[in-house]
């Protein structure tokens, strides 16, 4: 077991001046977003106030897809360069992406009840997003297994290969509403003439920016946690080697006396 370093100077965790600033900005943005999403933006003509769920559902979906893209790029870079930073980034983005995908699925399900009359349907968009969630769980599980296997398996190889599949799956999720018949609406804001406007469009854009800040804050902290995990593992190994050598030295000295 590694002896803890007593009273270490420097940061006491994963925060820094930049992340503290980002955190304050995120909280202020969330307060403003809640005002727009729940009070100042008008209800929809057809969906009435259920449309207010769009301001959390759509941003979390976009950021879940962003996280998957980051994991795929990090997996590809890790396979190419085998650098620790890409390995840690892939895991951090996948874990944050799992949280955002989960929130996207839950808020979508809740939104579906008043608008479609059901919490769940075997709809292409919902089903492919659920598969994305399962793929993220599988990716993180494989990384964990590879970590525990140590030298028995090429570290992270299987996880990285699954990581490569995330972005293609995101493309399937995105285009599923165009390729197959779906309950889910087609693209709303990615087209050149968005089908919403005014305060509703502004609130949606604000939601994407604010949840983007939260996502960045979480990703930075989770990356640093991953980095510390790697360093703690290396420090623990070094410490065990020192202790083992000391024990061997004592045994040899005892044998000579």
């Amino acid at each position, binding site marked *: 077991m590694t002896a803890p370093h007593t009273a270490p100077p420097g940061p006491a965790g994963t925060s*820094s001046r930049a992340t503290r600033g980002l955190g304050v900005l995120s909280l202020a943005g969330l307060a403003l977003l809640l005002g727009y*999403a729940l009070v100042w933006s008008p209800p929809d003509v057809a969906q009435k*106030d259920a449309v207010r*769920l769009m301001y959390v*559902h759509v941003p979390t979906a976009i950021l879940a897809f962003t996280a998957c893209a980051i994991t795929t790029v990090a997996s590809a870079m890790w396979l190419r360069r085998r650098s620790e930073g890409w390995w840690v980034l892939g895991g951090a983005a996948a874990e944050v992406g799992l*949280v955002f995908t989960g*929130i996207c699925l839950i808020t979508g399900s809740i939104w579906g009840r008043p608008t479609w009359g059901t919490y769940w349907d075997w709809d292409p968009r919902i089903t492919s997003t659920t598969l994305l969630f399962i793929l993220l769980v599988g990716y993180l599980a494989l990384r964990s297994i590879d970590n525990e296997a140590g030298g028995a398996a090429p570290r992270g190889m299987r996880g990285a290969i699954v990581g490569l599949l995330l972005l293609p799956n995101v493309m399937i999720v995105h285009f599923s509403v165009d390729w197959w018949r779906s309950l889910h609406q087609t693209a709303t804001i990615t087209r050149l003439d968005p089908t919403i406007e005014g305060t509703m469009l502004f609130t949606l854009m604000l939601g994407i920016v604010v949840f983007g800040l939260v996502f960045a804050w979480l990703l930075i902290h989770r990356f*640093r946690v991953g980095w510390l*995990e790697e360093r703690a593992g290396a*420090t623990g190994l070094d410490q065990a080697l020192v202790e083992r050598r000391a024990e061997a030295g004592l045994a040899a000295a005892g044998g000579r006396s």
Partner: protein
Amino acid sequence: MVAMTYAGYVGAGWGIALVSLAIYALRTVRRGRALASQVPPEERRWS
């Protein structure tokens, strides 16, 4: 003030999202603090 329609759904959706993010953020910060005590300060490059 006009009552919000579907207030339960809207409240549940936003509540679950914000509480989930808060719990995950707290858990991540705590993990970082616990690990930081096992790692020499020079390894924490973000200081």
